[in-house]
């Protein structure tokens, strides 16, 4: 699954030759993340985050499996077993802080990865499937993170479980039975704690499975790149190894420095003090807030403060709570149709002047506001500005993107990645007609772009 000029795996020793015949695992790795995978030569640092996300998935699985050796999912002792890990288990504090902050870093890295996708339109053909699988991974991550946060059985764990499962209660008719079914009771208790632990252990492996599909789908068209012009010829690419393994190694070092700074010097700044108080079903904390990575979606949930009524009749069509739940889930689910909303043939935001303005001055500030308001108390003026930002969020994806992709005049694209990097490209003497097209596979010089198999 690669371009015609991709290097072929050649086993050198008797052992690797034998292995290649019986189970070509080295060949698979070689073609996936080795010298056999040609990658555009012009990737910038925004392309580091995919590998980093994979790294943090591994961190979470490894530290999580180890923590599960000491944790007990029982309301009577769960909080105490976490303290046992922190105080008595050898290096337990390090493992737990790495796991808690690892979740935050996983989300930081994933958000960078997603916004890379937004700006460079990585979701467009021929990469829709990669994008769709990515959204599935993100949804699984959110479910996993939510259930993981319940496990320490602190006040925020308990009330987070109460509030989030309460969202399902907003569904008409079947909502409340569903909520009781999810919790296995009328409030979070042992039943909920145990099933959340079970699923929190299971889902990361499901994520790992979808990640494999995500990478598989990536290797069919190959990586996107900052110009958005598809790879045409060998001079557009370099082998993944050693070029991008080296770059990813450096990026990993930088991120690890940030990560360990947090783990060893400020492990609790991203958490909430209330979660060091054991769960108490009789007393709600003053401000219930989810973990920071849910804040934008929490802000969207809370933006809907009024029931949808028919004016002057007093008839309620949709209660505010349900509106909020629909909007919150809708805000992520709409990413599934993103490849078909934005039909501009140009991928990269660099060559889309109008899109770029809306991206930097619309979407990014709106997301920043939503992040901020989601963590703020539900009071004015936060509610008001989060409502404006929520409105922009939906307008951006559902209205602005389809319209600008229709009316925008893109800047001229370079003929090829080689031209973008070097300033000129011998092959550019060929007709330039197709160079603007997004899915311009048909116009590439003969043999230069093979649809991968």
């Amino acid at each position, binding site marked *: 699954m690669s371009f015609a000029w991709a290097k072929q795996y050649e086993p050198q020793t008797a052992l690797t030759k034998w292995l290649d015949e019986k189970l070509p695992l080295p060949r698979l790795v070689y073609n996936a993340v080795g010298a056999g995978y040609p990658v555009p030569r012009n990737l910038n640092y925004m392309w580091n985050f995919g590998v980093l996300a994979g790294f943090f998935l591994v961190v979470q699985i490894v530290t999580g499996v180890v923590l599960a050796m*000491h944790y007990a999912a029982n309301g009577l002792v769960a909080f105490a077993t976490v303290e*046992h890990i922190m105080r*008595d288990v*050898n*290096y337990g504090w*390090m493992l737990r802080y790495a796991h808690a902050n690892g979740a935050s870093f996983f989300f930081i890295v994933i958000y960078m990865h997603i916004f890379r996708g937004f700006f460079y339109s990585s979701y467009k053909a021929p990469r829709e499937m990669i994008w769709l699988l990515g959204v599935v991974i993100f949804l699984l991550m959110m479910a996993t993170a939510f259930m993981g946060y319940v496990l320490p059985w602190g006040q925020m764990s308990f009330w987070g479980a109460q509030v989030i499962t309460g969202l399902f209660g907003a569904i008409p008719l079947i909502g409340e039975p569903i909520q009781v079914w999810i919790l296995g009771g009328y409030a979070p208790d042992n039943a909920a704690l145990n099933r959340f632990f079970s699923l929190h252990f299971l889902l990361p492996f499901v994520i790992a499975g979808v990640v494999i599909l995500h990478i598989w789908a990536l290797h069919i068209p190959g990586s996107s790149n900052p110009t958005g012009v598809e790879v045409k*010829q060998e001079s557009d690419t370099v082998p993944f190894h050693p070029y991008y393994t080296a770059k990813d190694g450096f990026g990993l070092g930088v991120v690890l420095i940030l990560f360990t700074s947090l783990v060893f010097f400020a492990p609790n700044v991203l958490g909430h003090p209330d979660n060091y108080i054991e769960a108490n079903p009789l007393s709600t904390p003053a401000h219930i807030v989810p973990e920071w990575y849910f804040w934008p979606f929490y802000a969207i949930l809370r933006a809907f403060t009024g029931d949808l009524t028919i004016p002057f009749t007093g008839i309620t069509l949709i209660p505010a709570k349900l509106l909020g739940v629909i909007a919150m889930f809708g805000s992520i689910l709409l990413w599934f149709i993103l490849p078909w909303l934005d039909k501009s043939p140009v991928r990269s935001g660099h060559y889309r002047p109008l899109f770029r303005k809306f991206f930097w001055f619309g979407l990014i500030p709106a997301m920043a506001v939503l992040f901020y308001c989601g963590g703020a108390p539900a009071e004015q003026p936060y509610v008001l500005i989060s409502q404006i930002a929520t409105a922009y969020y939906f307008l951006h994806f559902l209205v602005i993107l389809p319209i600008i992709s229709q009316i925008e005049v893109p800047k001229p694209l370079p003929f090829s990645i080689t031209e973008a990097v*070097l300033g000129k490209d011998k092959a550019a003497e060929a007709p330039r007609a197709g160079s603007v097209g997004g899915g311009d596979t048909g116009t590439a010089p003969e043999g230069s772009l093979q649809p991968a198999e």
Partner: protein
Amino acid sequence: MATDTAATTEVSAAEEGVRRRDWIHIAALGTAGVGGASVLIPLISQMAPSQDVLAASTTDVDVSAIAEGQAIKAVFRKQPLFVRRLTKAEIDEANKVDVGSLRDPQTLAERTKEGHPDLLVTMGVCTHLGCVPLGAAEGESRGDFGGYFCPCHGSHYDTAARIRKGPAPKNLMVPDYEFTSDTVIRVG
């Protein structure tokens, strides 16, 4: 660099052998290897006994209340510990045995502390496969040799808790202990 970079990549591919030997790559890979290996330290040592388990690894037992001929069961490192005060007859019987004929030759004196020849402290763990032998509690079978009897596979221990019959290879283990006073022993 304005030339076709296909050539460049070919050159770099050809040079790869040379580059690989470059010290900077070796240093970088070596350092990464050291880092990766040191991550194993917490991952492995977290499975070793935690601080609370280690702290509970000594146990004080008050032996003053044990009457002659009686035994008590205590707990040492989450395992049963037998403390028996032997009768004169039991001591004599133990000393009568020809040590050379035993599977695990030990005298009673070697298995007790000086000055306390009547106090036999052993683990209540059969040396065969780890069952708890009978005989420490009132009314339990004490086996053919009047000591302890393991019902799992029929190991018989004598009054000095030495293996006499059955599959167990060793005498019941005598843990490290000392008298902290005349009536209290500290095990571990």
